[in-house]
């Protein structure tokens, strides 16, 4: 039955391919937790620990056992959703991360959507009108975008829009203190506020979101615009476009139905790399805007050497990235009808 649907088979194949990657990610995360400077037992036992309590911690954490056994324990803990205890907050790392993840996702997804809806049209316009101002604008944006350090863009935007123009709210978190945060449904303030019908809060949350999302979007739109332009140029110069033109198809049909759909494939492929950069840049943007997401959580944890929190963060980010890549590839099979058959 499965074999009868080549596309379903392709999807399952792709899902299977993600398994070794996840295993690799878990192994590296494990090695990172065990590579702590000095003796992890001394560290986790606390400052006031004596010889006996360090030994006790070592046994309690299973650090006296050989590495493979420790790894099995580590995986067992992971499967139960246990990422260890955060020293700074006193709560389980998994709880902390789960509380803060929606803030990060809201920021990153808004930024990515912003980036895609500006970069793709920009790239298409630049490719269809080479040598015009759109093309030059595209080139400037692309070059500046990859050279701009995200944290610096963020600070510049704060200076311009908060200090000089006074339009933006103070860059401190997701919601000004005059608003109450909306009831927790999805954790995305924009969605939650809209569900409550509380448009006042929605506007407040949106205002806070604009600058950090724009900062992140400026950074991510460069590679997307560059790739869209290149892919459109390749598609437009290929034979099937010439044929379509010669057959007398209208300009818009040639451009959107023929060239654009083909150009979309390499663009979707680069999205994976873009996500990698976006998730990294997310940490910096969260720090600049005091955004209460998992990135700033990790930064705070780093400052106080709260290693369990940092390692949990790294693992969650990596798994998030694997999932995002998976979604991209599944999207790929959805927009490219050939993929399903090739995988046979």
């Amino acid at each position, binding site marked *: 039955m499965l074999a009868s649907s080549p596309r379903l088979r392709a999807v399952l194949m792709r899902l299977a391919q993600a398994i*070794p*990657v996840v295993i*690799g*990610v878990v*192994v*590296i*995360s494990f090695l*990172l*937790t065990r*590579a*702590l*400077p000095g003796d992890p037992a001394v560290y986790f036992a606390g400052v006031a620990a004596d010889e006996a309590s360090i030994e006790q911690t070592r046994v309690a954490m299973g650090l006296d056992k050989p590495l493979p056994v420790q790894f099995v324990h580590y995986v067992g803990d992971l499967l139960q959703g246990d990422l260890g205890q955060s020293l700074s907050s006193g709560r389980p790392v998994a709880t902390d991360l789960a509380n803060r993840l929606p803030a990060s996702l809201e920021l990153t997804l808004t930024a990515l959507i912003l980036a895609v809806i500006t970069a793709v049209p920009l790239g298409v316009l630049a490719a269809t009108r080479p040598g015009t101002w759109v093309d030059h604008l595209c080139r400037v944006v692309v*070059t500046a975008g*990859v*050279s*701009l*350090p*995200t*944290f*610096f863009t963020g*600070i*510049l935007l*704060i*200076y311009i829009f*908060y*200090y000089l123009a006074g339009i933006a709210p*103070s*860059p401190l978190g997701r919601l000004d203190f005059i608003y109450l945060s909306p009831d927790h449904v999805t954790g995305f303030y924009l969605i939650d506020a809209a569900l409550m019908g509380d448009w006042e809060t929605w506007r407040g949350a949106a205002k806070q979101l604009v600058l950090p999302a724009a900062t992140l979007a400026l950074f991510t739109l460069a590679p997307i615009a*560059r790739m869209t*332009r*290149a892919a459109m140029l390749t598609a437009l110069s290929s034979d099937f476009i010439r044929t379509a033109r010669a057959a007398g198809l209208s300009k818009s049909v040639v451009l959107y139905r023929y060239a654009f759909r083909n150009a979309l494939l390499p663009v979707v492929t680069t999205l994976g790399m873009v*996500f*990698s*950069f976006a*998730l*990294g*840049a997310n*940490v*910096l943007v969260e*720090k*600049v805007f005091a955004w209460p997401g998992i990135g700033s959580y*990790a*930064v705070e944890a*780093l*400052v106080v050497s709260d*290693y369990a929190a*940092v*390692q949990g*963060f*790294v693992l969650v*980010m*990596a798994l998030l*990235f*694997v999932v995002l*890549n998976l979604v991209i590839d599944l999207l790929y099979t959805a927009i490219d009808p050939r993929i399903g058959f090739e995988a046979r």
Partner: protein
Amino acid sequence: MSDLTPTDLPRRHGTLDHVFYVLRANPVTLIAFGMFAFLILSALFGPALVPYDPLATNAGNALQPPSWSHWFGTDQIGRDVFSRVIVATRLDLTISVAAVAISFVVGSILGCIAGYWGGWPDVILNRFLDTIMAFPLFVLAMGIVAALGNSVENIIYATAIINMPFYARLVRAEVNIRRDAGFVRAAKLAGSSDLRVLATQIFPNALPPMMVQVSLNLGWAILNAAGLSFIGLGVSPPIAEWGIMVAEGANFIVSGEWWLAVFPGLWLMFAVFTFNLLGDGLRDIVDPRKRT
């Protein structure tokens, strides 16, 4: 692209001509080389030339806006921002150059082994690289620094590790397509050992694309290192470094003292921009077809 072999000297002369031709045709690349020279000079001679001691505090002269005596103003404890920005060039370039050099060497060795002999080392290397690339790279760098300890050397190692896959993959591909080439067989017939063939006949062919990668990577490595120190990793406060200067200046931007963060940020941008331009220019020299 011409394959460089020892008997190829006349053609290498042609390459030099090609370089001059590209530089003439593309003045932007020439400017990039000029900017690069400026960066190198400020890294080498900057500390000797700057008007003030980058660490000297002067509380009576704190938070002064840019003026003739302090071109980039002064910071919250009266240090000269211009001197600090110029002096920081050496540290930032050292971190990124060291990191890229390590990833270049390690990536080349791993890529050569995997590309030339294939088999299980190849499979293992690919799995390993896939796993590294499965992490958001900046996040992985954070994790590595957190695990190894918070120091400048570990920033270098972390940056090297996250850049290494790009080199290893490039070298692997370049070596792999040439392992059975005619000149390689000829060298083997002439009695050269595998290692010798690899080092003298095959690997040099991977160098031109590697140079492009190095240049683009340097910009990225600087951004990465500055990002890490921006979040408080690696370089510790009194030392001048662009990322940490932007981080410190960020506290003053909301009260209008823009020069603290803007100048180091601009310099950082300038450095990254230089390496990106240089990389694009080198790509034109190495492979004119890939021009976008």
